[in-house]
């Protein structure tokens, strides 16, 4: 990935109407502990709010949390809006319990495929720990 200067900064929030804030709260602490600057937007964040915050803190990545089952719907168009806002190369992660029906949640490659198609760099299962996600982002950013 050829990118702008990395400054260890992320935006975190749950998307759409999702109220599940606990995971984001845990992530916030983990990223802070790992030396990241975190813009924690809490729950029920719109695409635009994510993007505004990302611009404000010059974020390397937006960590979209979605647990209530409608992430596939809520995340549609997010990448396009980033591109419009000049954040074409920002890293987009999504994690949580991101697909509503069990059949789909169990068919993980298909879930991943759909989020990739929507322009997300990675999708994380809800069994992923906060630390693991930090490690992955660091690797993707090429930083320690």
């Amino acid at each position, binding site marked *: 990935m050829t990118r702008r200067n990395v400054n260890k900064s992320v935006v975190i929030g749950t998307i759409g109407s999702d109220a599940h804030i606990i995971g984001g709260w845990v992530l916030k602490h983990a990223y802070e502990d790992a030396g990241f600057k975190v813009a924690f937007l809490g729950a029920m964040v719109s695409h635009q709010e994510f993007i505004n915050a990302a611009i404000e803190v010059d974020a390397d990545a937006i960590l979209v949390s979605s647990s209530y089952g*409608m992430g596939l719907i809520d995340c549609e168009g997010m990448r396009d809006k980033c591109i419009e806002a000049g954040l074409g190369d920002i890293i987009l992660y999504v994690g949580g319990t991101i697909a509503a029906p069990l059949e789909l949640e169990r068919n993980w490659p298909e879930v991943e495929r759909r989020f990739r198609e929507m322009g997300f760099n990675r999708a994380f299962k809800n069994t992923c720990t906060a630390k693991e996600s930090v490690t992955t982002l660091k690797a993707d950013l090429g930083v320690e």
Partner: protein
Amino acid sequence: MAKYEIRNKRLTDEEFFRIRKEEVLPQWETGRDLENMDECISAAHELSVGLGRNYAITLRDANEQGIHLLQPQFGRALTEYMIDGMCYVEDESPLVPAGLWNVFSDSYTRKNNYKMAAVGIERSIQEGTTMLNGWPIVNFGVEEARKIKRAVKSPMTLNSTDEDGRLASETALAAGWNACNCRSITECMAHCKNIRLDEEIHINQYESRLAAIYHERGVPQSPHISCNLTGYDSCGFKSFIMVVQALLGSEQGIKQFYLEFGINMNMVQDAAMMRVTKKLCEEYCQRFGYTDVRFIVNNNMFQGAFPPRLEEASAMMNLAVMIGIMGGSTALVLKCQDEAFATPTKEGMAASVRMARHLDTLLGALRLPDNAALREEEHMLELEVRAMMEKCLEAGDGDIALGICLGVDAGWVQTMISPWKYNRGNVLLMRDAENAMRYFNCGDMPLPNEVKQYHLDKLKSRAAKEGRPLDFDMVVSDLQYASRLPIIQK
């Protein structure tokens, strides 16, 4: 004090019907089918009392007879999936005749975002599976809700609120379901971000009054007072808000409450919470002149993170059912083995009913015997809840609606983590050696010193057991104490 207009006062019929006409029914096109309230009530009567499937009556009778009602939860995007799934559970498990249904709507509906719900319906039809996390009751409207009601044998209730569940509740009630949650503070803390508590109480006053009107006109209702918040709240906080809600709902005329406890998974502490809450609900209602109100203790399972594997989930569910039964619940809301992954499947829910019913058989009439540890826990909890109640009542000059709004502002009323921007969130909770939930730091909550000390002492038992000092990391890792899979040493 002039800050808020809200008061704990019954809506007049005039106000009620004005709100109904101007604010509630116009929210979405299906509201039109509800305009004639007399028709709604008589249809509801026929479909619930008439068919012998009234939620409130079933609950009351079970409570009197000491029978346990099992209550699976279900919600899919399309009506056909609903009927298929619910009939499946009734056919493949011993749900009938001692069962209830807890149907949940999807989150777009709960956010009154019926346009997005319509998108979800479309997507679901396209994909041939459910793409919403519940049944969009408002989009489908009252006739579809009646169709479901006719198809299933067990009485039903609707779980559908976030900020504003009024139209959803109107729809459900008119279909012969039970509805109208009485839980303004719960909603704010669990599901909301921006709404002010006084606004939310106002909205909920309507819902409570609505249930009361159905009840008064011969269709008994048993609205839920819930404290299944974030899954990470103290028992005292949960108990306190239930007592508050009892006063708010009773003022609107509710006569029978379904106390829906979200348990913290320690049998003694949870039993104490259930007992103290019922006692204080009754006592405070008496004090404010609501003398003929019935409270029935029921419980939902643990509302925190579940483990992502069958056996661990089964241990969770069995413990939860056991706590419910041993602690004195009548109805037991069930989660299922899929909890960590997706909304409940019909297979998962049938399995949970089989499991819970067998546990009920095995336990028979056994309850947690009265004991000193339980009494101490009850005592401390009572001190805590009374302190919070009195503080708020004082602030509100005897009016609990006003008092609790001021309490939130002051930080007396708060929980650890919430999406709600008005939550102060400087309280820190963790589990003691017995996995009871304790205040590590009680922030601005007005707890008596005795209570604070009690919690700290209990936490010391954990520090001793683990041989390390208590710290913030424990608070964080406790959020997942029940969902982490054990390590396998290879």
